[in-house]
């Protein structure tokens, strides 16, 4: 398959799951090793979170999906590069397993190849007409003023 739907990595970390969990699920942790300019997280399923990168001036908005301390942390986020209004998101899940005195951490990000028919159609229609529609609305707005 040439179009990867999922990315998977496993790393061995020389720290217990509790410490790794804190790095993954707290604003202090996420805003330091992942984002470079702070983060915020409401750690419960459905909770919102964000991380910011200064150099790129970029903020990633996330939605917390799974919280099973200290073993599973999952969230969804926007597919980088797609328009903000595109509903497609990838799902990221961290799994922490004790490994000796440390932790075996697995991260799986999936959903890169999703393309449900209705979303496909919406993306086509929405974006081919996007600018023409916006400009039409601007013209209407100006005409009314």
């Amino acid at each position, binding site marked *: *398959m*040439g*179009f*990867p*739907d999922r*990315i998977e*990595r496993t*790393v061995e*970390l*020389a*720290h217990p799951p509790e*410490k*790794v969990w*804190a*790095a*993954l699920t707290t604003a202090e*942790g996420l805003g*330091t*090793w*992942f984002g470079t300019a702070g983060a915020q997280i409401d750690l419960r399923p459905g909770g919102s979170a964000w991380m910011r990168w200064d150099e790129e001036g970029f903020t990633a908005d996330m939605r917390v999906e799974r919280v099973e301390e200290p073993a599973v942390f999952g969230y969804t986020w926007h*597919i*980088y*590069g*797609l*328009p903000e209004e*595109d509903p*497609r998101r*990838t799902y990221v899940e961290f799994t922490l397993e004790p490994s000796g005195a440390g932790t075996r*951490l697995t*991260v799986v*990000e999936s959903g*890169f*190849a*999703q*393309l*449900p*028919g209705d979303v*496909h159609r919406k*993306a*086509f229609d929405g*974006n*081919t007409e*996007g*600018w023409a529609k916006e400009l039409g609305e601007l013209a209407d707005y100006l005409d009314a003023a």
Partner: protein
Amino acid sequence: MPPDIEAVAEQVFTALADPTRRAILAALASGGPATATDLAGRLPITRQAIAKHLALLAEAGLVTAEPGERRRVRYRLRSAPMQVAQQFLAALARDWDGALGALRDHLDRGAG
């Protein structure tokens, strides 16, 4: 996985592999819908060559033909296939190795 997603991405990358087609797509992206004649006036390519490439791009769903002024066909960029290609690029650009390396450094510094 829908069966067509890879085919859609492949058509985008095939289209972008050719400099003339890149120039046509870039012109439509920056300047909006245009006829083959408009494009021939803006690009250092013959109208015949442009028409040939536009037909190929339309066949691949990367541009759509629509009626323009004076019964000329205008071509409009179709963004959805580009977004499929972007999904592929997003997967390649996602730097989990870098992020996990940063996590390891963060923990080893004792900050975790």
